[in-house]
């Protein structure tokens, strides 16, 4: 595992990690946490897209972010690997801790954050100039890995994890864009997995796919959570219900409700959550 910061961690952070019990109101031992998001607000220029969101993201679980279009789901997701910074004039307040380390500390290199926190996008985007094989290992290549044996091993491993190996193993030299939509999205998942991140962020990964391709990705997400922490944005209530362990409901940049998916879907404590889930708005 690559450390975010080479120097010793911020004492405030260490202090925090040492008392995780406080974070969980239950008497059971607290589940291990991957992210702790504390009072995070995000601005695009003058516009506040995320307003004081605090939540913890459990390790080796799937956390779904739901909410109507424009409520800030993508913005929130992208602040977890500092991708939102690519938009000029963005500003973040609050803290995001990844395994206890502050992602926004001035000593942290965003490239290292992104190596630890991978991302899959709504629109599949395999590199058009590269073959299937090159697409998978390009992250390692560009991060300086030269050992061909290692690259080949990682290529196969990543494609297997993305449940794509059997379909493409004889066509590794073919263009990545020659695959079907669902295969392209799994190729993008393999590409993200190849750099061995700890977390996988997915922004509506199935919204452009047909039901069969969607089912494959959902199954994949279910299998991947044994090894990864997954945060996924979805527009689709049923999907959130099927694949996630925890659900966060965002509305107009605010976190309205957060809890186990079963609770959110069967017994939400907020009226707004219930209205949204039952399809009365959004």
């Amino acid at each position, binding site marked *: 595992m690559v450390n975010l910061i080479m120097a010793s961690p911020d004492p405030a952070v260490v202090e925090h990690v040492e008392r995780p019990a406080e974070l969980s109101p239950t008497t059971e031992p607290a589940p291990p946490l991957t992210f702790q998001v504390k009072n995070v607000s995000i601005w695009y220029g003058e516009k506040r897209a995320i307003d004081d969101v605090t939540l913890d993201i459990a390790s080796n679980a799937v956390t779904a972010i739901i909410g109507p279009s424009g409520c800030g789901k993508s913005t929130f997701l992208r602040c977890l*690997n500092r*991708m939102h910074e*690519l938009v000029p004039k963005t500003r973040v307040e609050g803290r995001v801790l990844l395994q206890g380390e502050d992602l926004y500390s001035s000593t942290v290199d965003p*490239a*290292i*954050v*992104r*190596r*630890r926190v*991978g*991302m899959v*996008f709504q*629109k599949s*985007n395999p*590199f*058009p*100039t590269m073959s299937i094989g090159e697409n998978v290992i*390009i*992250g390692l290549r*560009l*991060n300086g890995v030269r050992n061909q044996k290692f690259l080949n091993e990682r290529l196969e491993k990543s494609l297997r994890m993305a449940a794509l190996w059997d379909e493409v193993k004889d066509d590794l030299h073919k263009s990545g864009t020659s695959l079907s939509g669902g295969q392209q999205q799994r190729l*993008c998942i393999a*590409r*993200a997995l190849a*750099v061995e991140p700890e977390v996988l962020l997915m922004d509506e990964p199935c919204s452009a796919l047909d039901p069969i391709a969607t089912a494959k990705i959902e199954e994949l997400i279910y299998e991947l959570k044994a090894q990864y922490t997954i945060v996924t944005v979805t527009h689709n209530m049923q999907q959130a219900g099927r694949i996630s362990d925890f659900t966060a409901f965002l509305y107009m940049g605010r976190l309205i409700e957060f809890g186990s998916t079963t609770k959110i879907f069967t017994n939400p404590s907020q009226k707004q959550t219930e209205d949204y889930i039952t399809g009365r708005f959004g």
Partner: protein
Amino acid sequence: MTMHSSRADNHTWRKIMNALASATTFVSALLVIAPLGLIFFHLLANGASSVNWAFFTHLPKPVGEAGGGMVNAIVGSLELLAFASAIGIPIGVLGGVYLAEYGTARANALLRFVADVLNGVPSITFGVVVYGLVVLRFKGFSAYAGGLALGLIMVPLILRTTEEVILLVPNGYREAALALGVARWKTIVYIVMKTASKGIITGILLALARVGGETAPLLFTAFGNRFWNHNLSEPIAALPLQIFTYAISPYDDWHRQAWAGALVLVTGIFCVNVLVRILTRGRTTSAV
């Protein structure tokens, strides 16, 4: 009834106007193609007989002696283009990448404006500037000065086409690479520029085709040379210059050679353009 007949009139009138419009546009289209056809026809008629083995292998003969060729001018042109590329390609490509990927909106607007002005400046101006800066200072016409003048013309051409094709690369590819933890500059070089490489090469080829036929900027920089150039700090021959010198001479034999030179030059430029067409085939489907 009256309404009907006026409608019919309208209909006939529209038909006439339509026919007139398509006839006019057809003639205009012909007028666009005609010059190219005329040029090729003339060059073939006057120059084809003089394009022979000797033309590509022999130096010019002294005045009064028939025969000889333009090998020194052909090689000279290639040398000048190589030198111009060494200046024009790196500056133009890097500048275009800077415009598309970095820089502030205001600085970029200024740079774009300057490049567009330079693209509109008559090419002889570049010759004058290089004459003042290089030829006078180093007291002599040279291959360096000629290459520099051509290179300076290439810079704004390549800069603008590079910027355009880089901006065509969908943002999703940049994001995908950055999300893998790839550094910004590597993303630009290995993902963005690679995706846009066909377009960048096309821009470079078009710039080469454009300066390959330039004569004016070479008049008082490269100057021309009837012999081999053995030293880049000496005057050098170039095909367009040689054509110019031969065409304004009083000798029939030189006139024939000028036609042959023009035919070779135009054919070369035509080939570059065909190459560009091949490279940009299917561009509508793949964006870049």
